[in-house]
């Protein structure tokens, strides 16, 4: 991804600090559009660009393609770690969305966040780990996803296949209620 980036974005990692302020004069969506175009060129119908804002791109994909797309993003687009994994429950559409916020420590795109979202089936009576609410784990591609996915599993009941360690992380050991971040879990007095 070298040709399309404006020259102002310098790729120095240990270099002089005087040039750093100039990096941010890049015009708005050039870089973002470039990244989104690369994704749509490669995967065209498998991927849907939700929005392109300053420094933020969100793409939506099917859960069958997510491994392939994540691998491409990691290897060709230089996104190397996961900032956050947020699960969102949509009871109206009967789906649970999982949004991976991918970031990069590569100096050329370190201000970018690529939100990669995917959806899975939501069960009305969940049985975490044993029902159809499943997604493939991205741990082999982004190692940093490990604890985030464990958290997502206990909070929303999304089971990540091939995750080596799907144990409980934050909730008490005797938690037997619904996963708390589902919308049908009501808190006291509300």
């Amino acid at each position, binding site marked *: 991804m070298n040709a399309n980036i404006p020259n102002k974005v310098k790729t120095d990692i240990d270099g002089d600090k005087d040039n750093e302020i100039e990096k941010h004069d890049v015009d708005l969506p050039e870089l973002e559009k470039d990244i989104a175009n690369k994704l749509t060129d490669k995967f065209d119908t498998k991927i849907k660009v939700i929005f392109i804002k300053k420094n933020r791109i969100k793409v939506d994909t099917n859960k069958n393609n997510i491994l392939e797309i994540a691998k491409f993003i990691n290897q060709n687009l230089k996104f190397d770690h996961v900032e956050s994994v947020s699960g969102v429950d949509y009871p109206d559409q009967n789906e649970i969305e999982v949004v991976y916020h991918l970031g990069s420590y590569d100096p050329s795109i370190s201000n970018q966040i690529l939100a990669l979202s995917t959806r899975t089936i939501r069960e009305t009576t969940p049985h975490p780990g044993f029902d159809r609410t499943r997604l493939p784990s991205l741990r082999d591609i982004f190692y940093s996803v490990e604890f985030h996915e464990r958290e997502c599993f206990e909070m929303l009941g999304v089971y990540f296949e091939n995750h080596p360690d799907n144990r409980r992380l934050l*909730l*008490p*050991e005797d938690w037997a*209620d619904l996963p*708390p971040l589902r919308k049908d*879990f009501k*808190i*006291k*007095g*509300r």
Partner: protein
Amino acid sequence: MLKDLLIPQNANAFVSKLGDILVKAVDQPLGYAINWGRIWSLWPVHIETACCSVEFGAASGPRYDVERFGIIEAFGSLRQCDLVVVQGTITRKMAPRLRLVYDQMPDPKYVIAMGACAITGGLYFDSYNVLPGIDGVLPVDVYVPGCPPRPETLIQGCMLLQEKIKRMNIR
């Protein structure tokens, strides 16, 4: 009166009565001495439960310095401690551990509930993982309100506890 009791059938009652008299004679001065010792050696156990531990740390710092009042900063081994300062929210995961810590401490032991969360649940009154106060877990001696309490408030709470210990019956 005592003479009436002085028959073999009433030996038990006599001994216990004698004991009462002895205790009454010694209780006041001895109890004062023991309580005096307890007041100036309150050692809090090192268990932080939530964010009030920041202000607890500040209270042990140089500006507030609870050590002036005979309460040293949090100590490692719970076998040598006699004070639990519950520093904030008790979650459902922490509650059994807190009780375990309390049970392992030697008598006498005192509890200060620090912060709104430890008293009633505070800001987290409707959270799914927070106990509404620690009254169901530990017997509390002094409540220190605030979210978080200022170190001065904590020091005042400790002094109230000392006042309470001074008036306690040692039996």
